């Protein structure tokens, strides 16, 4: 069999799929295919980082976001965080740990097909407020929780 032809067919099919998705607005390049936001992740300032990443440094505190973390984390290097929300039209979910050297921990860009749920584990240098920020229809919503850390996860 002609292998080159096979891979050509495969590539053209994959390319076609992406083109269709972009055209239908499911995968706008700025949302899903954006490059890693270096400035936001390198920033030591939560507000600047939030502004650079999400376009605003203020958010509406809401109880529609469920931010689940332990109240006391014995080991700061592994702190489970779960963010769940009932808000519709979610574009991204981000998690900030205010006392960390680099507050922005994780940010997930969601397309329309993703359910607004994100679970992961983060490091906390010390007792810190953790903010989950959800961007939906261009607006920011947030939920805050304080996690007490008895043993730090950064430095060492």
């Amino acid at each position, binding site marked *: 069999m002609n292998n080159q032809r096979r891979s050509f067919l495969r590539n053209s099919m994959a390319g076609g799929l992406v083109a269709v998705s972009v055209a239908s607005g499911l995968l706008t390049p700025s949302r899903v295919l954006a490059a890693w936001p270096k400035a936001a992740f390198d920033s030591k300032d939560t507000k600047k980082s939030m502004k650079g990443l999400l376009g605003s440094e203020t958010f509406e505190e809401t109880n529609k976001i469920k931010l689940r973390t332990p109240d006391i984390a014995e080991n700061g290097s592994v702190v489970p965080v779960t963010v769940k929300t009932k808000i519709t039209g979610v574009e991204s979910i981000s998690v900030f740990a205010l006392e960390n050297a680099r507050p922005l*921990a994780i940010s997930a860009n969601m397309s329309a097909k993703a359910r607004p749920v994100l679970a992961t584990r983060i490091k906390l240098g010390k007792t810190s407020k953790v903010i989950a920020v959800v961007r939906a229809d261009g607006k920011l919503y947030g939920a805050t929780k304080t996690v007490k850390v008895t043993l730090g996860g950064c430095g060492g």
Partner: protein
Amino acid sequence: MAKKKLKVRASGKKGYAVIKAILFHPMETGLRKSKETGQVIPAHYIQEVSVKHNDAEVIKVNMGIAVSKNPYLSVEIDGAAKGDAITIGWLDNLGEEASTNVKVS
């Protein structure tokens, strides 16, 4: 064989699928100092994780240094049914990458 770089499980629920992944990675922050030499251990961490459902990217996760070692990630995809292909891939700050393919079960 090289060490396994990631482990993914996708389980189908009614109308959606739950994707759980563990990415094996040191997630070195670049802020830590080695106890023996006192030198800063260079940063080495995953920056991007992409979750694809049948070749269409559904979720793109950007990670910073504050994500724990061997990151765990759980997301849910609407409309993913049994037998659908889920691809998860990561890319770190040194350009290393890995990806794997699973079927929703």
